[in-house]
Every structure is written in structure tokens, then in C-alpha cells.
């Protein structure tokens, strides 16, 4: 047995007897006999309890079967990034007062959680250049989906547009959320189903052009337009003209932005966007095979009452002391039930706390340095890979932390996957095989370079590519 039950059966029996409950089994009498389980004399579920040491061994064995950032240098991004996580973060979030508490329903004994959420909201506002922010969403994808639902609530239009190369998971989640309620999701210039090379516009032969270049002229039927920057391929472009064009036709402009990039790229608020969303995993959260991560959702102030999720506000207590509370709750499911702005009950509070502490430890100087180094290293690696003659660029123009290249002169659809397999043997996690996502991207490889990647690791990657492709 797990050893997590302090009151043992004998004592339990005595306690219950003392209050007149003679047969503890009778406590389950309300469950009809036909549904009691296990029924009869067979117990189909017979896994015995393991001691703590056995559990540790079992899970260590499983963990050893994975490649990880502890064993490999990771050049894979595509929405999840291997940035350095300062040591103090885990020590602080492991404090049981943060770790084991629940939603701050009782503000008097939850000021720690409430104030850290308020700090998270404030820091995201500073990054995005917007006035309000909620306490966090499940991930960047659901934040984008909820943002598009906000657009529909605000404008009473029933269609949204996904513009340019948006992360495939974000696209898919937006489709799931919106179509469930009968709304329409259009896409243009991304890599949606049916996008072929012929349909792709722009000056580049492989990737679609910039988001602006594929923006339809008529947006009058759309509630909102979502653009991702940096886009799925790492590309960045001026956002201001997109926001202006979208808003001129009565739609809301929504940007999905990587939070690290906002240290050195103009903010969505500054560029005129109404809503900003994104995946805040890069701020101090582990890769962890995909979660838990944490989405952020920030907006202009007039959209406040359309927002989903918990929001923390500042007030004073009855002695006039500065206090933080859950607020504007009349939007939420526990009050509005089926008329709520969303079904989301809580948030990703502990992940948001990691992001908050990450920003506090980095400070402005550190955050800018992380972004600057990630950008510079990605630029350097892309140049070096092209210089080998083994790869060719697949887009022109600037990028942040991530870029795509294509293996020159070879359209074998298996080649990237074999290259990644070869790299894995040499202690490197290679980039994403874009051919898996869209046939027109066969032979294309999406690589991410964070500040953690060293010159030596990048040289090893180049060398291994040379050995595999030219050798």
C-alpha cells in the first residue's frame, strides 16, 4: 500500500463505532450490488503496490529509454524550445505553499498565488504592449482558439481567418474549438490541407509569401484574423500593416507571439493588435514531452468582459491594505454556467509562476541577451549550413531563433528522417522533418537554435550533416 493514509483500518473502525457507525462496509451500501467491483471472486486488476524504491526504479528505466536534453543537444523547436531554466525557479515553485494550493478562492490565505498571478499578468502586458491579461490558459493553442472566440463575441460575425504559416497544432485546435460551435475557420497562405506549391504566392519558390502578401482584400465577413510571429518557420515580418488592414474592416487583429522574441521584436500592442496570445513554455518551463505548458492571452482594455479564464485584480482590504483578488468573475462558468465566456475553470498557475520567476531572474538585460543570442546563433548556423553546399534556403528575409533549409538536389522523402536518426546516434536531436506536414516540403528541415546551443554543438551538427549527406 502506498502509505499515504494516516488512519489505519483498525483506528478507522473504532472512530466510526464511536459515532455510531458499526459496519464501515455499509458506507458503500448506496452503490447497488450489481455495480460493486470487483464482482464475484475474480479481481481482474491485480497489480500489487510497489514500494517507493521500486516505483523510482520503474520510472528511471522508462526515462532512460528516451533521448533528452540531458543526453542530446536539441536543435528541434516547432513550438517548444530548449532555453536555459535558471536553477532558482524549481526551488521556488517546489515550495508546497505554491505547489499544493488550489485556486485562490480564499484571498486571505492565497495572497501568494494571487500576487504572483498579478505579476504574471503585468509582465505579459509589458511584453505584449497590451493593457490587460488573464491568469493564463492551458497552452498557446487553446489561447489562440479562445482569442478567436472572443473576436466572435465582440463582433457578432461568425467566421475567422488564420493568416500565414501558423503552428499546425494551433491551427487544428482553433478548428476544433470554433467548429464545435458552428463557426467557420478559413485559412490562407499557410500549409493547410489543399495548399500546394501552385497556390503559394510570393517571391520564394518553396514557402508561401509573407502573411501580408496573402492577406485577402475583403475581410468584412471575419470576426478576427490570427497571424503568428515569428511564424511556424521562424520568419518575422512587419506586423503593423496587417493590424491596420484587418481593423480597417471591422475585424479584430490577433497576434500569436513567442514571448522571448518580444524582448527584441516590436510588440503586438505597439503594432496595433487587439489581442496577443502565445505559448509561454520558453519562459522557464520544461519541454516535458509537451506539457504542462502555459498559454498567455492579453488584450486591449475594452475586451475585458469578453475574456475567458481567471483574472486577478488589485484592491484594498477593509484596513486599506493592498490586496489581490479574483475579479470580473461574472464571465466565468461557476457563475454563468452555460452562458460563461469559456468552460475553463482554473489556469496553468504553477507554469505561469515559473514564467514569472524566469522573467524576474533574467530581468530586462538577461531576457534581451537570451533573445539576442538565440537570434544570432540561428543566423550563424543557417549561414554555415548553406555554406556547406548541402542545404539551400527555403525563404528569404529575417527570422528569429528558427529557420528552414532544404537538402540540396535530393527529393528522397526519407532522407530527413534518416539524417535525424544519424544525428541521434551522435548525440544531436535534429530539426523537424517538414515533409511530414506537407508533401511540398519534402526534404525541408526546421531547426531551432536557442542560447543554450554552443559553437561546439553547432559545429558537431554541421560535421555530422557533412558526414551523412556528403560522406
Amino acid at each position: 500500500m502506498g502509505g499515504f493514509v494516516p488512519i489505519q483500518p483498525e483506528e478507522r473502525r473504532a472512530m466510526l463505532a464511536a459515532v455510531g457507525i458499526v459496519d464501515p462496509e455499509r458506507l458503500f451500501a448506496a452503490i447497488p450490488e450489481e455495480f460493486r467491483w470487483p464482482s464475484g471472486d475474480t479481481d481482474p486488476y491485480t497489480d500489487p503496490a510497489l514500494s517507493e524504491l521500486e516505483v523510482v526504479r520503474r520510472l528511471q528505466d522508462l526515462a532512460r529509454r528516451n533521448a533528452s536534453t540531458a543526453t542530446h543537444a536539441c536543435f528541434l523547436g516547432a513550438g517548444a524550445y530548449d532555453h536555459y531554466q535558471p536553477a532558482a525557479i524549481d526551488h521556488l515553485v517546489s515550495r508546497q505553499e505554491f505547489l499544493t494550493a488550489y485556486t485562490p478562492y480564499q484571498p486571505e490565505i492565497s495572497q501568494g498565488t494571487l500576487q504572483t498571478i498579478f505579476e504574471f499578468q503585468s509582465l505579459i502586458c509589458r511584453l505584449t504592449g497590451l493593457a490587460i491579461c488573464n491568469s493564463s490558459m492551458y497552452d498557446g493553442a487553446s489561447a489562440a482558439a479562445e482569442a478567436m472566440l472572443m473576436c466572435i463575441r465582440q463582433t457578432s460575425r461568425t467566421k475567422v481567418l488564420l493568416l500565414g504559416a501558423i503552428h499546425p497544432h494551433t491551427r487544428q485546435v482553433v478548428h476544433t474549438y470554433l467548429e464545435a460551435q458552428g463557426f467557420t475557420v478559413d485559412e490562407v497562405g499557410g500549409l493547410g490541407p489543399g495548399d500546394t506549391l501552385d497556390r503559394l504566392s510570393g517571391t520564394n519558390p518553396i514557402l508561401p509569401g509573407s502573411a501580408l502578401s496573402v492577406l485577402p482584400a475583403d475581410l468584412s465577413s471575419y470576426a478576427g484574423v490570427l497571424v503568428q510571429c515569428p511564424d511556424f518557420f521562424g520568419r518575422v515580418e512587419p506586423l503593423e500593416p496587417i493590424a491596420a488592414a484587418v481593423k480597417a474592416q471591422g475585424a479584430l487583429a490577433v497576434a500569436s507571439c513567442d514571448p522571448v522574441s518580444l524582448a527584441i521584436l516590436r510588440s503586438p500592442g505597439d503594432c496595433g493588435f487587439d489581442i496577443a496570445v502565445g505559448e509561454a513554455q520558453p519562459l522557464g518551463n520544461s519541454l516535458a514531452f509537451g506539457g504542462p505548458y502555459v498559454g498567455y492571452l492579453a488584450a486591449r482594455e475594452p475586451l475585458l468582459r469578453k475574456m475567458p479564464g481567471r483574472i486577478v485584480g488589485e484592491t484594498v482590504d477593509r484596513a486599506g491594505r493592498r490586496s489581490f483578488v479574483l475579479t470580473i468573475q461574472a464571465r466565468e462558468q461557476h457563475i454563468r454556467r452555460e452562458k460563461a465566456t469559456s468552460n475553463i475553470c482554473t489556469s496553468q498557475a504553477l507554469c505561469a509562476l515559473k514564467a514569472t520567476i524566469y522573467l524576474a531572474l533574467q530581468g530586462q538585460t538577461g531576457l534581451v541577451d537570451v533573445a539576442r543570442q538565440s537570434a544570432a546563433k540561428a543566423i550563424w548556423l543557417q549561414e554555415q549550413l548553406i555554406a556547406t553546399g548541402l542545404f539551400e534556403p527555403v525563404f528569404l528575409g529575417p527570422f528569429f531563433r528558427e529557420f528552414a533549409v532544404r537538402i540540396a538536389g535530393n527529393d528522397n522523402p526519407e532522407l530527413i528522417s534518416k539524417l535525424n536518426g544519424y544525428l541521434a546516434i551522435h548525440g544531436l536531436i535534429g530539426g523537424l522533418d517538414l515533409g511530414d506536414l506537407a508533401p511540398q516540403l519534402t526534404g525541408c528541415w526546421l531547426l531551432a537554435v536557442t542560447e543554450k546551443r554552443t559553437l561546439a554543438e553547432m559545429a558537431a551538427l554541421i560535421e555530422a550533416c557533412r558526414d551523412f549527406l556528403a560522406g
Partner: protein
Amino acid sequence: MRMTNQKTPDPDTILIFEKGGSPHGNRLIPPLDVPDVDLAGYFGEDIYRSIPPVIPDLAEPEVVRHYTALSRKNFGVETGPYPLGSCTMKYNPKVQENLAALPGFAGVHPLQGDAASQGCLALLADLEKQLCAICGVDRFTFQPSAGAQGEWTGLLMIKAYHESRGDHHRKVMLVPDSAHGTNPASAAMAGFEIRQIVSGPDGMIDLAALEAAIDERCAGLMLTNPNTLGLFEKNIGRISELVHGAGGQLYYDGANINAILMQARPGDMGFDVVHLNLHKSFSTPHGGGGPGSGPVGVKAHLAPFLPAPVLTLAADGHYWLDDARPQTVGRVRSFNGNFAVLVRAYAYILANGADGLREVSQAAVANANYLLARLRDAYDLPYDQPCLHEFVLSGSRQKEMGCATMDIAKRLIDYGYHPPTVYFPLIVKEAMMIEPTETETREGLEGFADALLAIAEEVKHDPELLHLAPQTTPISRPDELRAAKDPVLSR
């Protein structure tokens, strides 16, 4: 938005970015080891941010002291009894934290490929097997991030199932009036119309009301069992016949499954879809309100509709993620769900085994009934039956004497206890929903009961103590009206 023009902030509530700080950088990462790039020139002024976001540069000791001080203003499960009904605030075993942090889990990239992730996939496969056995269903998805997202995902599968059979007219989801607020909210987000079913005088689904509500448009019924009063819907067999007989599907809200672990299984009761809150019954930490995890289990007939990709075992013994699922409801989350939460739940199940999980429900139910027996005379008990893992008292008697349930809750804080869930379920006036869980100690149970009994006496003799409560906390009764009327949501 109230603009501030405030004096020096109170040192106890100073925000991290209100601390001084002067630009100095830190030593967290080494200097750049490739040629520097003029990023302003590279990106151009339309893209480059010339004024970085304002975040002060602080030294690590300042940051650590700040967050340590904030943590001390929180009440956690290890601080003391936390009988927050419906939330199952049980103790979270420490070893789970170590295991989730293993580099071979924490450092795995979600897209690094099936071959490089076999350990993660094997863990998910075994966890799925165990949860299927515990719940009596055939398949699970781990994508949903939390219970509410799990509800919505399960409802999308019900919708897809009906549509696959040409039953496009099944648009109505039945939800009891005692249900969690997420139930109707999730049903609305899944595109259903909601029809509320009133509870009978015994707190159970009123079978006549249910029959009257069922028609050919019925898509299904959402049910928490035991319900939010902590009572087992003993007519579940009949309810299942009625709903299925009308062509509907039965949805199990697993928020309260702690009460019946290894005693009864939702699948056997006729439920077609089950979501679990792993942060409740399977003991993963609540994190101050997330991350949780809301896996959804289904019977075989709903498996084609699971979110893609689906974990699959190949003939050669390797696991892989199958994206080719033509009838899938789609993707509900990026990547693979809250994997690190799943690691913790898996470790918890292994540590308990079948017998341990049965012990969990027995102890949880015993603790609740013991508290109920100690408190039943001092407070009103609107539904007077033996409870399962939780029970709901009413503070109506105290309210008449001038002390509301909120006053009782605040006074409990002065006694060193986390208050129960209050004013829920909505069908009980001045509700106090008490769930001690199986991990509460004898001292904790007795102390909590003693405190509530003492407070009941204070209501009679010294109500001012309740009105002034709490007096032991950094703040007391913050002005929530002001917060909502004149919002300050960031600084």
C-alpha cells in the same frame, strides 16, 4: 482603468517590478560564442523593438526572498487540513516530484519522434491500461489539459458519434442542477443546447423529471456520481436505461471518483465517456490552480472519435502516435497533453496498487462520515443520508443568527484551517461542502470538527468574532466590489 499615482508601495506587497534594480545583467548564460549581429539593422525598424520591455534587473537573492515571502502568504495541503469539497485536496507524495523532474522525462522534446520517445510512450500505454481497468472503459486520451477541457472533449466525441449515425438532430445535453458549473459551460462550448434536470427532494436525479426531459433530440446526460452532495445516484441503472433507451450517451464527470475507487466503475454503471481529474483523485499537486490533467476514457464504440493522434502498439513492440484517424474530433491541445502530470499520476497508481486504491476510497468515505457525524447537530444537513467522500452542510441556522457561511469560512481561517467549498452546490442555501480526503490525519479531523463546533457556539454568543475574521492573516476581506468596478489588472 484606474491610473495610479501611488505613494511608496507597502513593503509587504511590493511587486517584483516595483523593486529598484539597476541594469547589470546576470551570470545565467555565457557570453555569445558566435559573431554578434546588428539586430536592429538585421530586422529593420518596422520589426525591431528599440525599447525593450521594462523588467528590472535584480540579483538572485532579491528574487528568491521575494517569492519565498509570497509563498508564506499561501495555505497549502501541507500547511493544514484543506477540506475543500469537490477539489479532493489530498496529500501529494514527494517522490512524484522527483520522478517528473527526471531529465529523461523533463528534457524530452514532444516532436523528437516516436523512436526517441519510447519511454514516454510506454509510460502512457501502461497508464492507459491501468485507468481503463479502474474506470471500466476501453481507451483513454491524454490530450486534455484539465477536467473542463476533458468534459468538452468527451462531449465532442458524443456529438461526433451521433453525427456518424446520421443523428444530426441530437442537440440537447441534459445536466442536473447540482452539477459543476463547468458541465453546462463545456456542453455549450461543444455546441449543445443545455436542458437542466432538477434534483429530487433526496438530492438525486428526479427520475420523473429525467423522463420528461428526454426526447428524440437528447444527445446524452452528464452526471457526477457520487454527485456534488456526496451522494451516490443509486438509480444509476435506471438512469442509464432511460438515456440509452432514448438513444443518448451517458457522460461521467470524474471529479468525485475518489469516493468509489476500486468499489465501482463508471463503465459498469453504463457510462460511455469518463473524464478524470488526475490532480484530484490521482494526487498530482494543484499548483495554485493548474496544471491539472483531464484524460478522457471511452467505451469502444466511441474510440474512433478520440482526439488524434492515438497511441498505438506496433507488431514489433514499439509504440507510435497514429495521426490517421478519419473520424477524430480533431486535436484539442498542442503536443501530448500535460505529460509531467501524467508521470506523477502513474507513480501514484503504481505505489498504491489495486488494494491501495481501494483503501483510498474506504478511508476517504470513512473520514467524511466521521466528520459528518461530529458536525450534524451543530449545522443543518439538508440531505440527511450517509455520504460518500464529501457532504454538504448548510449554514442557514447560523445565517438567521446573523452569521453567513462566508463568516464561518473566514473564522475557520483564524483556527488554522482552510475553509470548505462554500455556496456550492447551488441547490443548498449557505452551503458548506466538506471533503476531508483519505490523507487527513486524526488530529486534523478532530481539530477541524472542534473548530466548526466552537464556531457554532461563537455564532450564538460572540458573533463579532466571525464578522471580524480573519484576524490572523496578512489581509482581511478584500474589497471585491471595488476590484470589479474599478479594475486594476496590471502595473
